């Protein structure tokens, strides 16, 4: 069961991600991104991070993607013209792709615990909102405050950049 879930979700995620960077029309890219993010949320569920899976769907698939689609519609962005890939870039992609395909599994296998397996239901339960919340508000409280300031800056920034002066 774990295997089926992992392999189908992983294939879905990588396919959607590849589609994001290959498609010419930004709307299709955005829709593929939503799809990929939902696959990732499902992967979070297989990792028993249920709260984060919910956050992933609400924040990314909900807020961020709506923002993307809204801006695409607002700016009326057309599909990009297909331009031939320059020779040097094509070679770079080929070499980089080869290195990645060969190197990443090896590197991933070299981590100390990378051969550890854990069936569903085993291991410590970490993903509950309660546990996350208690860490966030005790050990990581200063960082939580700092992210609050960060969101304030982003809000002020969006207003400054997009406000129309009367």
């Amino acid at each position, binding site marked *: 069961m774990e295997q089926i879930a992992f392999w189908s979700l992983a294939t879905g995620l990588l396919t959607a991600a590849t589609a994001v960077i290959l498609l010419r029309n930004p709307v299709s890219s955005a829709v593929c991104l939503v799809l990929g993010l939902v696959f990732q949320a499902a992967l979070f569920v297989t990792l028993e991070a249920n709260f984060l899976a919910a956050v992933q769907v609400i924040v*990314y698939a909900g807020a961020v993607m709506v923002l993307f689609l809204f801006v695409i519609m607002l700016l009326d962005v057309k599909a990009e013209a297909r331009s031939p890939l320059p020779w040097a870039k094509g070679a770079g992609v080929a070499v980089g792709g080869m290195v990645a395909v060969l190197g990443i599994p090896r590197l991933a296998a070299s981590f100390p615990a990378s051969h550890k397996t854990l069936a569903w239901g085993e291991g410590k339960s970490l993903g509950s909102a309660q546990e996350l919340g208690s860490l*966030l508000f005790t050990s990581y409280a200063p960082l939580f405050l700092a992210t609050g300031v960060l969101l304030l800056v982003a809000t002020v920034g969006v207003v400054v950049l997009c406000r129309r002066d009367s």
Partner: protein
Amino acid sequence: MILGEITLGHYLALSGFLFVIGLAGVLLRRSLLIVMMSLELLLNAANLALVAVGRFQGLPDTQVAVFFVITVAAAEVALGLAILVAIFRVKKTTAVDSMANLRF
């Protein structure tokens, strides 16, 4: 071996591939919207690795890290799209992508 039990290595490899796809998007695409979507892919790849490591190693801290990364990514997207809208207003052109001095 590969089709056996799912290990931490599988998740790390998956996140590595996702990261490379995002990196390729940032470096190769001209459209700023798609570059920003690729940045999201990069951060999501890192998130996947964080959650997987937390689960297999029993570290709850990684989920806090993911929480922060999601917040930061949302703020970054909001700001980036606001700048795009502002560029659109100044240049009065829909061709956001054709900015001459924006090659990396």
